[in-house]
């Protein structure tokens, strides 16, 4: 599973494909305070990013991949 859903935390691993987006959306709809852990994520499909942006999901760990982080950080930083 490229996304592992813990109690209140979604752990993104490696490459997260478009197929995951629907599940992610459903999961996030019931957990408004959930956080995303992107530390080992290499790439996530646009559909997933869109879900995270719409849900304004906080990020607990940014990707180790600096280039991906540079993309995601401005898009997923929400003033709390």
């Amino acid at each position, binding site marked *: 599973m490229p996304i592992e859903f813990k109690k209140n935390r979604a752990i993104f691993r490696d*490459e997260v*494909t*478009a197929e995951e*987006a*629907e599940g992610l*959306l459903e999961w*996030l*709809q019931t957990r408004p305070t959930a956080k995303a852990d992107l530390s080992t994520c*290499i*790439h*996530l*499909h*646009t*559909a997933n*990013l*869109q*879900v995270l*942006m*719409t*849900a304004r999901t906080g990020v607990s760990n940014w990707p180790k*991949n*600096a*280039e*991906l982080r*540079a*993309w995601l*950080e*401005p*898009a997923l930083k929400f003033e709390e």
Partner: protein
Amino acid sequence: MNPLLEQFLSESRDLLENTGKNLMQLEDAPDDQGIINELFRSVHTLKGNSGLFAFPEMTRVLHAGEDLMGMVRGGHATYSRELADRLLEAMDFVGLLCGEIESTERIDASRSAEAQHIAEGLRRLMPNLIPSEIAAKVFGLNDASLTIANALVLPIDYLSSGLPFASIPEAVRMAAFRQCQRGDSLHWVAYKPERECFFHGDDPLNSARQTPGLVWGRVLPSEPLPPLSELDTYSCALGFHLFTTAAHEELAEYYRHIPDQVEITVVDPLWLVIPQGDLDGPAIEFGVLADLLRLLKEGDRTALKQRAQTLLGGSTAELWLSSSLRWLICLLDIDRNGMPHDSSLLRLLIQSIASGTPPDWTGSSPADSSAAEIADVIADGYMDANPPRPLSEDDQIALDQILAAQRQVLLLDDRPAWHVGRIKSVAMVLTNIFQAVGDTSARSDVQAALTDALSTGNNTLLLTLLDAWLSASKDSQSEPGLRCRLDANDDASDRTVGSANIGPAPENIPDKAPADEVVKFGRRVEDSLANSRSLKVDQAKIDRLMNLIGELVVSKNALPYLAERAESQFGVRELSREIKGQYSIINRIADEMQDAIMQVRMMAVSFIFQRFPRLVRDISRKLGKEVQLVLEGEQTEADKNIIESLADPLIHIIRNSLDHGLETPEVRLAAGKPATGKLIIRAIQQADRVVIEIIDDGKGIDPVAIKRKAYEKGIIDEAAIERISDQEAINLIFAAGLSTAEVVSDLSGRGVGMDVVRSAVEKINGTVLLESELGKGTAIRISLPLSMAVTQVMVIESDRQLFGVPMDHVVETMRIPRSVIHSIKQSPTAVLRGRIVPLKSLNSLLGIAAIPQANSDDELAVLLVQAGTIELGLLVDGFQETIGVIQKPLSGFLSNLSAFSGSALMGDGSVLMIINIREIV
């Protein structure tokens, strides 16, 4: 070529043919839902397949076609001739691309514009539905899922508002600026993926990340994001801004799949020069600014740079001032196209330091003298320009507080690593304060004290100075808790790295998307395996099989000779009988095998007929004629080579019929005929020949006109005008030389003569005959052998040699007494079956010095042959049997022997020369 691509091409051709056929059918039955469905499926399959390969041009056109057909199918658009024209044009274009792919395995990028044009043409025919609605119609998506899709199309029009370069961190911009001065181009890409892009397997984020030469990028919602509960995961609502150093061609190539979704703007490097920062910092001293301008005016760039560096060293990195200075240094460092930057540019930058607004580069031309004048005035007169002014009470309190805070800083007695920075900072604060209050004389004092403090490591002088000012101030109350900013830092670059600072593009991340398509493709292959029983084989393989069977037939024929030798030479009658027995079995199998291979090579004439509806439609529409095309006997089969070589002659004939045979509706009505002309193309199998008839009910051919033309061209003489029948006259149009300019306007169009048709037909051993009745119509009959592989020849003997004469030319064989031969003008002739037939000796025609041998009854063997309209009696020595041979063309220098059309191997291994009757008579 990889096998998948090969299969794609071959399937595409089939599908294109299908599409063309369906479109033609739809013309007659525009409401036939079955045909519309089939059409949609064909286009859809084609599009899907093309998506497997990197042929975006093809996919784009097909996609538009598919959408259009989808709407026709859904009843949202109606079928029209215009629509058919467009679709046919699109399919022709796709066919063209297929050809290009076949020869080069790629599509030239130059086709992109054409593809877009065609796709737009198709889309124009669609009623004004927004794309998501189209998608909903085409894919049958549920409308509810698309409710948020109604706020359509975010224009990628940033040009009017200026590109948002300010959102790119300064360090990135500066690096790019330096890079572009080394020759790299700069481009801004606004990428707005279409909503349905996820369905196409696109991952816009991945595309954006992989953009060549990317230096910076960001992702933005391209429209307000909906509430989470209403989000459609499969509708892309994000867009991208990308800043890249790649060349335009490289970007165009990278985004060639989706040129309509990206907007690429060439970036002038100067657009990057945007000073940014905190304007609330201490204002720059007017004198400093004037100083910079003066140095610039004097052209002392080294000094200017030094001055700027000193200033930068003393100011906080986040300030507007620092940012401007960094850019100033950067511009001073880098030459523009090998030339130093124009001073007017630098002046604008320096002025922006003071104004706190980004320089307006559009007005940066050197001719802009007013700006230059103002700057000069400032540079010359700065000393008097800003006299000291009294401070307000609030300002005075603030001033004192600041001075007190600085004093406390100086009194700190620890010596941290940043001690030097601390002292510099205090000095800068003091300088700025005195600049603000207009006390310019104090500046030099501070500068001197700073130099002293830095060299001695002792800040006493600075402290004394500060104390003096503090005591000079009226209210010298200090507040210990007051903090001031101590964050001076010389190294600005660490701090300015912000958002997405992206280095070289990372390793390719395999795109997951194609997986869907592959699965789809696999499924489709299975489908076709399940219901298709045909096999596609390269023609070369069949040809080889054909050659092998030919050799087998020949070597098989050697067995009877062997049997005879066994009996006559070795006297083993038993063995001879067994050989004969075996021979008959092998013979039967070989015959069947030959027949089977012939069957493989057989093709239905529909292969060429199927293109006629389109041809007839196009030409008749162009000529403004109404034509009903009737195709008959499409299932009639003949050898592939025959069928293929028939295509061109037939097209010529049909063109002629349409152009010159059939009349316009008005003329037809006037002549008492129905307005719609009728063109019948019919294929019939007659024994071992295929007859193709092209019959029109047009105006027919006037034999008198033909005779006159032929006479004018010297094809026939005066006597012949009277002698030849109308039928013969009409067939004169096949004569070479009649297809000249005047005749072109009369009989044949486009400079293609009927003689070309005749020679093409004769090349494959066919004959062509024309019948016409003036005012009633014309019929052209082409008779062709079923197969070119086996030729029936009659073996004849002459001067103890054997020759073969193709049976096509043999009319009859007979023996005539020498007495019935008469000489007319030294030419021997005989009256055969009531006709006068010229006689010629085969020996003399072939240059053999021997006279024809008569048999014991003094009768000569005459082979009556016909070549075209010429009938001739060939005097030979004797006749033998008729055999089927596989004729091989003569090769090498033998191919110059026009008297022989080829050679064939006899069963006993001897070579039989086949006479080319047409050449020798």
